[in-house]
């Protein structure tokens, strides 16, 4: 039975033009292309996306506020391996009940260094609850040309929406 454990890909969705990408969950897939198709079926059955990214879960370097508190600065440095600097996306969960949200990018030679720079550059008045960083090159976005075929059909399927059923009105008139 052991042919179901494909790689995990984290899925990020942009809901409207100009809004930041949000983490929505993950899918399993043998490759990024299939991960995007699975992500569309799992996370965009209703009008909820104009663009999607998938990122291998293993590429994401994650630290909660608690983990950062527990670490000494030097410990974070330890796993830094010198490579050429490259851009990293920075996500954080700013509210306790929130989700990972794109803040911007930093240039770094390692995930740990990217994390340090992210914390230095993007910490606001209130420290976020958790941070994610990953190299930009690990992102597979859907082809913008496919966006219509991926996301437009959901808009025509109003029968998937609870607002399409007027049961409250029906029950109110019955109870009178």
């Amino acid at each position, binding site marked *: 039975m052991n042919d179901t454990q494909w790689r995990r890909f984290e899925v990020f969705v942009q809901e409207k033009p100009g809004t930041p990408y949000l983490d929505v969950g993950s899918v399993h897939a*043998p*490759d990024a292309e299939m991960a995007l198709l699975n992500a569309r079926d799992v996370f965009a*059955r209703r009008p909820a996306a104009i663009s999607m990214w998938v990122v291998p879960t293993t590429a994401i370097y994650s630290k909660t506020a*608690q*983990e950062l508190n527990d670490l000494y600065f030097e410990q974070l440095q330890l796993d830094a391996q010198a490579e050429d600097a490259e851009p990293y996306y920075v996500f954080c969960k700013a509210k306790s009940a929130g989700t990972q949200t794109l803040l911007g990018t930093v240039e770094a030679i390692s995930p740990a260094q990217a994390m340090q720079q992210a914390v230095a550059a993007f910490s606001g008045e209130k420290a976020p609850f958790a941070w994610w960083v990953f190299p930009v090159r690990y992102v597979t976005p859907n082809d913008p040309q496919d966006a219509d075929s991926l996301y437009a059909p959901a808009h025509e399927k109003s029968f998937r*929406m609870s607002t399409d059923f007027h049961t409250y009105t*029906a029950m109110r008139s019955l109870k009178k």
Partner: protein
Amino acid sequence: MYGTTTGEIDETQEEQERLLAFEARIARGEKIEPGDWMPAEYRRQLIRMISQHAHSEIVGQLPEGAWITRAPSLRRKMILLAKVQDEAGHGQYLYHAAETLGVRREEMLEALLAGKAKYSNVFNYPTLTWADVGVIGYLVDFAAILNQTMLARCSYGPYARAMVRICAEENFHKKQGQDIVIRLAQGTPCQRAMVQDAINRWWQPTLMMFGPPDHDSPNTPILKRWGIKTKTNDELRQVFLDTIVPELHALGLTIPDPDLRYDEGSGHWLIGPIHWDEFWRVVRGEGPCNKERMAARIQAHEDGRWVRQALAAYAQKQTAA
């Protein structure tokens, strides 16, 4: 330099401080995220609950899926297809939430297919008529929404976020079911009899969905203490009754319980005994459809094997190229 005894005491003290800090975070209403420290028992309880919940969504496709080909109109067919597809999606959200706790999806799937995993008892009952599709949406999904709305506020971030997505979609499930029940209840005598029969059969299994009574629910106290549950089984069951009983009465339908009565003092609807002996029988695998459900699940897994193999082969070819 340090004796073993001192080390052990330090460790226990540190553990104790960790636990106090963890419980203080929960008391502040903070969500626990993967990577944060958590007691082993918190992790164990969550894996148990989330995987059972995921299995229930997956097996839950079967009773209603049986009516897709027999839906009375194209519109009803599209609605039912969308609903069953949602259940598959919910199963995926939940397997992935469980994975953030360190368990693998494969382990969970294997446990389900090997018959070792539990899923909601309610899916081990047959769907005999079209009215069953309405009653499942209306009663079973409403019961699920009450439980899931509570869990959407739970202390574990990934579970809470999965629940928020699920609740929004379950609302569609409930309303499409309620819509069917309203139509049938206002229909011909034959349609009314059909929907009444469905309620008679689904009433007890739906009440059992909230789980055993509080005095017989050993996990509840720790789940409440750690903010996983905020209401007990009996509390949620009462919310269900106080909403659903007046609605069914307004529809001119009856509830198969001679002891049902409204208690003026408390403002609650009170019911007669729930058939817990039947509940435990179904849990043990002796329900009307346990074997059929598992057989269908295993068949679906086997039937999908060539698709999985093809996808894996394609991915491998792409990497090699």
